[in-house]
Structure formats: C-alpha cells, structure tokens
C-alpha cells in the first residue's frame, strides 16, 4: 500500500478530526485536571485547617483542665522562688539564719556556679531549663539527729529547693571529748530553679 499526495484530500478531514480531537481532549483534560487538583488542594487545606482547629480546641480544653489542676501548685513554686532566676542571696541569708539557731555544732557551705541540670532518669522539662547550683555542706555534729534537724530547717525556712543527693557521716576519733564534734558529715546536692526559655 503506497500513499500519494493525491490521497491527502481524501484523508484531510479525518486527519483534521484526529488533530482537533487530540487538541480538544488535551484542553478539557488539562482544564478538568486543574479544577480537580485545585479542589483537592482546597480540601487538603481545609482538612489541615480543621485539624489545626481541633488541636487548638484540644489545647484549650487541656489548658482549662491544667489551669484548674496546676495553678495553685505553680503559685506555690513561684512563692518558693523555684520558678525564675537563682536567688543566691536568699539562700545565703537563710543559711545564716539556720546557723544562728545552732542546730549543728558548725557547718560550712560552698555554692558552685549555676549549670544546666539533667536529672537521672531524665525528666521532660517542657519550656523550662532546669538550673542547678551545686552546694556542698560540711558539718560537725554531736549526733545524727542534728543533721536531720538542719535539713528540716533548710527545707522549711529557706525559699528554694535544695536537692540533697548524698551524705557521708564519719565518727571522729576524738569522740567523747567535751565540746568536740562526735560526727563529721559531708553532704552534696544543689539548688534547683526552673527558668522558662520563652521568658527573657
């Protein structure tokens, strides 16, 4: 089968029909595809909007519940000066007041520079950085109960949170001598404060 130029007039309408059909098909496919894509995107966006709104509602409900549960306790933390910056002057004043009460024969303290604290096991801290100012204490005691009294006073009379992590109590060799310490103790721990990263 061979075609010649003279065959083209016989075929031209069919060829034009195929071309026109292809063109029209492309246009309607493109247009309908665009419409479908735009509608799909709109649905996707509104679905995201709804998800966002649901998250906001859940957050609001959670906030409502959290407010009721935590406001009082949080207020106490603020009152205890645990939320915010280190209050080293308060700690020193508090320790001096305890010293004046002679709860122990003698004690010495040493507060180190503040650092970020990572509790073990780890604790989720939200927007807060947990600050830790290590404080080592050395005691001269007549008996163990003095140590307990000291830490009770520290907890109840000084604003702040001292996290006691360990102590070593050692009986001294000159025990029994009048006015001499019977037990020497060394304790370590740190002052904990919570600093909200979002609040400068």
């Amino acid at each position: 089968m061979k075609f010649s130029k003279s065959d083209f007039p016989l075929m031209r309408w069919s060829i034009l029909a195929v071309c026109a059909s292809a063109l029209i098909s492309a246009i309607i496919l493109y247009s309908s595809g665009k419409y479908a894509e735009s509608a799909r995107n709109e649905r996707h966006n509104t679905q995201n909007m709804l998800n966002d709104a649901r998250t906001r509602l859940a957050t609001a409900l959670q906030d409502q519940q959290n407010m009721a549960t935590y406001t009082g306790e949080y207020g106490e933390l603020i009152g205890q000066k645990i939320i915010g910056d280190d209050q080293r002057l308060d700690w020193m004043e508090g320790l001096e007041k305890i010293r004046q009460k002679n709860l122990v024969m003698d004690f010495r303290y040493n507060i180190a520079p503040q650092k970020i604290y990572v509790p073990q096991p780890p604790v989720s801290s939200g927007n807060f950085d947990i600050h830790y100012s290590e404080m080592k204490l050395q005691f001269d005691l007549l008996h163990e109960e003095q140590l307990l009294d000291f830490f009770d006073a520290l907890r109840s009379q000084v604003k702040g949170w001292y996290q006691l992590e360990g102590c070593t109590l050692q009986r001294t060799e000159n025990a029994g001598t009048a006015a001499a310490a019977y037990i020497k103790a060394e304790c370590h721990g740190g002052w904990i404060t919570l600093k909200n990263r979002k609040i400068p």
Partner: protein
Amino acid sequence: MKLLLFLNAGHLHAQIMAHGKIVTQHEFSDSPDGQENFAEFLKAARYPAYLLVDVIEEDFRQETVPHMSGSSRTALLQRKFEQFYHGTLFHQATLLQRQKTGRRDDDMLFSALTNPSLIKPWLDIMLAQQIPLAGIYSVPQISAPLVKDHPSNHLLLISWEKSAGLRQTYFSDHRLQISRLTPIRADLTFQNAVISELTRTYQYLKSLSLLPSGQTLDVRLLGHSHDLIELQLELPRSADMRYDFADLANLAKQHNIDYRFTDSDASQIFLHQLAARPPQTHYANAAHTHYFTLWQLKHALNLASGTLLIGCLLWSAANLWQGGNDATEAKSLQTQAQRTLNEAQQITLTLPNTYAPAADMKAGVSIMRKLNQHDFAPSGILRPISTILDRHPQIELDDLAWKMDAAEPVAPNTLADVPAQVITIKGHLLDFANDYRAALNYLENFQRQLAAQGYQVTALAKPLDVSPSGSIADRRETGKHALDFSLRLSLRPPL
C-alpha cells in the same frame, strides 16, 4: 451503508444496502449510456463497494505446490499466475488443504476471471470516482457457505441468476472444485435449463475424474418453491444422483436474509451473503482496493478521534465529579473548622489570667513533682537503719554514706524511674572475743533485718571470710577493729 454490485455479461446491477436491507437498486446495461449512468449513480453512492461477478469466463485450476511461506510463497504464486493466467489481473489462489503425507504440499485452487474487458470498464469508472472497492468476488466463491451444512462430500450446487444464467458449482469435501455457467437464452426457463444441463455436468465431472466412479452425486437445487415442485416431477430418477431441493425463502430465513423471493433468481442470496460475510480472498489487487484501504484508514482515524474524545470526556467527567466532591467536602470541612475554632476561642476567653500559660504551669509542676520523688529526706534514710542498729547493740557504726544513684539495677516490684538510695555502712562487732561463729550469725541477723525492710544487702567486707575461696589465718589480736565489716544497701520505692 454498502454498495453491492452484481456484474454479468452485458449487465450491471447495483444496490445500496443498510443493515441487511436494500435501500435502493439500479440496473445498468453494458453500453456507453449505461456506463455514463453508472458514473452518475456513483456520485451519490460513495459507499464501500463489493463487486460480485457471474460470468462464463472464470477458470479454475487445482494445483499442488510445495508448502512455502513469506516472499517465496508470493513469488511461487506469482509464477503460477503468470503461467496460468497471463492476460488478466483478476486472479486468486485459495488453499484447499495441506496434504497429510509426503512433503505435506499444499493443494491450491487457482482461479481467474479470464476476460478482463468485461470488468475493466466498470472498474475504471469506480476508480475514477474514487469509490472504495472492497473486492471483486465471484458467485462460485460466494456459494461455499450455502453448502457447508450439507453432509455430502460430492455436491453440485445449482442456482439460477436471472440476468446471467444457470450456475453449477461442484464441491468436493465442501471445497470448491469447478463451476460452470450456462448463459441465459430467451427460450430457456430455469426448469429446462436444469434438466438439460444436469446430465451434461454429471458426465463432465466423471470425465474429469472429479467424481469417483460409483459415487452418487448430491445435487442441491436453489429455487422458488413453485419451480422446485415442478422440478421434482420432471427430473429423471437415477441412482447416480440424489436431489436436495432448497427453497430460496427457507434459505433466506436460515441465513437471516431479509428479502422476498418471487421467482428462482438466487442473485439476492449471493449479494446478501456477500454483504454479510465477504470472503478474505478475492480477485482485486491492491491498486483496485486502494480507495477502500484509504476509506478504512479514514474510518480508523475517525474512530480513533471519537474514542479519544469520548475517553477524554469521560476522564474529564470523572475529574469534574471528583473535583465537585472535593469542593463540597472542603466547604463542609471549612464550616466544621470555623465552628471548632469558635469553640476553642470561647474556652480560651473563659480561662483566668494566670502566672503563665497552662502548659508551662503543668510542665513546671510536673518537673518538681518528679524531682521530689528523687529527693529523700535524710530522716527517711537514717531512721530505719538507726532503728535496726538499736536492736543490735553489739554493732558499732564507724561510717555511713548514702547517695542517690539512677544507675543502680532495678529490683523487681520497684519504681524504675526513680534513683535508688545506695547506703554504705562500715562498722565493727563488739564483745565476741574469739567466738567467730556467734559474730557471723549476729551480723547475718543484722543483714536479714535490713533485707526485711526492703534493702538489697550486699556484704562488701565481712569480719571473717569462711568461704572456700577465702584465706584464713589465726587471730591472736583482739583489737577494736578485729571484727570490721562493710555493707552496701540499695533501696528503690516499691511500685
């Protein structure tokens, strides 16, 4: 729509058919006027044309050729056509069967319309008018379907074409072997022609050895019922021939031909048969069917256009439907989102003005609650041990150290996320002299009482190592630290 043409010597019948029915029909004589009229007729009848020829000048030759394929076969057939039918373009070769033995050659039927001048004028007019000619067929070729249901292997089909004459076609094993046309004469009726020609044809078949000796020839006669009744009475009774009278009306019904027969002219049977099931092979060559090929291509293109357009329309409709659904859903989601946002806003407005956002308050309080669990007041550590020590006056404590240790292994039924208290006790036993057994039992009892309080007790150093792996020496000194020991206690809060 199809254009059916029936050509015989001196006459051309044309009919336009649609869905198996004749729309219009015309007759043209083989004369300049007739051909001019035909050309005029074709201007309005530009449909695919099927030319059926019923002429005397049709020759059949059976030939056995080697089985070949491709270009070798084409060349072989071309050589045969040159050899048998040099002067005509209208020839064809039909495979009758492939032999089952020997070289398994092909039994072929070569046939040709040997007088092209009968056909050419009409064909030239069609080509000049660019009529899509599908093929040139002959009545014997079209007849095969009319006998395929007949059980006989030696069958003579007799039909009457009013404008051509009496056609006798012989089939062996339902395959066309030979065909004869007895032309029409004014004084010759269908019945007379059958009676006079049938015996001659029988003799002719015998002479060509196409009909085996002693074989009964089955004769199928196509005709109108009236004519057939007459023939039944007039045809000679003979053991050599067996008749099968086929009424055209019944045959038409059998082949779904919508035509009312008024005489024994079987032309319409053949024309309808050709319109419904045109054979694959025919006498026309590629040049003759050029416009038909173009017509097929044109239709294929039109079909492709239509299919493409419909397909794309359906696809687009699906897109629009999906888009519509998405748009409706988007609107509904938007309403829901707005309602949910309003609800959230209402709740937010009712929240009191507090120190910090609720989440921060929760986080701060949670941290301190957790750290509080990590923190043990010294009283909680020292008092239980003091109580047990009070019950063991023969133990004197030298050192006591404790610390919080998260790395301590977790004992069963204790909290894993709280550091363990690890306490180290160093002391010595008093007043046991050399009664080591009593001293060890005393210390053992002390350890048991600690364990009863929940401590995991490990002895770091014992006053005396009596285990098989230990070394023992005699102890003459009885100093204060002769019975020193060291214990490690570990405790986590219970679950």
